Every structure is written in structure tokens, then in C-alpha cells.
């Protein structure tokens, strides 16, 4: 199953939208950098029900509190997610 990684703010660009349009059941979603704003935003984008992660450091840097449905992870857990999934798809710019 795919690990999708998004780094763009939900309204700033199309990365999250494009990602969700290519999301299959069982895939995982990781929000990094400016994408962490999607982790507690009003629901412009309907995020999947589970397997949604966000880099804790990136959220903390921006003063973003994660919604309950989003799991905060550190870099070590990110590496583990990469080991557990294939392929890894980055959505950026």
C-alpha cells in the first residue's frame, strides 16, 4: 500500500487535492511542512478516516494543533512508515 506524502498547505496549492484524488483504500497519508495546516483546518478537504499522520516538529513549528484523527509522529516513525509501505509518493509544489 502506498504512503502519500504532502508538503503544501491545503489552500496554497493543489498537492493535497491531487493526492486525495489518487488515494486508494488502505493507503497512508503523511502531512509534512506546510501541509500540517491541513491537520486541523476546517474541512475544505475530506481527509481519509485513518492512517493519517503529521510530523510533530512541523506542526509544532507552525503552532498547529493536530485534530484527533491525525497521529503525530517523529522522524523515526516516519522511517518506519516508509519501511512498511510501498511505493512512496511525494506530492509537492
Amino acid at each position, binding site marked *: 500500500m502506498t504512503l502519500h506524502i504532502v508538503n503544501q498547505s491545503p489552500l*496554497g496549492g493543489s498537492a493535497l487535492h491531487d493526492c486525495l484524488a489518487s488515494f486508494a483504500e488502505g493507503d497512508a497519508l503523511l502531512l509534512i511542512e506546510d501541509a500540517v*495546516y491541513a491537520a486541523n483546518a476546517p474541512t475544505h478537504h475530506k481527509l481519509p478516516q485513518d492512517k493519517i499522520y503529521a510530523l510533530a516538529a*512541523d506542526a509544532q*513549528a507552525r503552532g498547529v494543533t493536530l485534530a484527533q484523527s491525525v497521529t503525530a509522529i517523529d522522524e523515526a516513525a516516519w522511517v518506519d512508515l516508509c519501511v512498511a509501505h510501498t511505493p512512496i509518493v511525494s506530492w509537492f509544489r
Partner: protein
Amino acid sequence: MANSILALCRHAPYGNTLAREGLEAILACAAMDQIPAVLFTGDGVYQLLEQAPEAINEKSLRRNLQAMPMFGIEHIHVCEKSAETRGIATDALQLAGAEIVLLADTGAFIRDFDQVLSF
């Protein structure tokens, strides 16, 4: 008479450098006595949130923001709709020494300036 200048800040902090370099340019203008008006709109309103970027080894952009009043920038204009769209409670926005001015009609505000710097 010198032109009136508006600085338009529409990018989120940290993801790319435009937010930081925008704030640096604003302070440089003010230091030259070309005090710009400042408007945060779109993702730029995220710059007004409290931040803790030491988590990603970055300097806080809030410090640049907080320096504005010392440089004579006493009003921070914020697009009300942009903040609401992003779930940001506008009554929670604060900046010591400056007044946060919420704008409902940014178009009417922008057209009164001679020059606009976009960041």
C-alpha cells in the same frame, strides 16, 4: 512626495522563504523611512499564529513581526475572510504594540496605494 507602499504577504511561514524575506524587506523599507502598510492575506495569515520553529531548527518569524511596531508599523492589516477560511479566530490575533485591523474589502484597500510589494 514619495510613493505610498503596501506590502502584501500571502505565503505561509517556513515552507518556503518568501514569508521570511518579505518580512525582512518590510523592516528594511521601514528602516529607510519608507514605512509600508502591511496586509496579510491568503496563507499569509498563518504568519500571525504563535510559532515554535526551534523544532525544525528555524528562527521564529514572529520576531520579525514583533519588530514592526519598533520600526513605526503600528497597524497590521489582515484579510478577515482568509483567516476565517483557515479556521483562525480573528479575535485571538494579537501583536504587542500594533493594532490588528481586519479588512472585509481588501480590493478597495489595495487600490489606494501607489506601489505594491508582493511576498
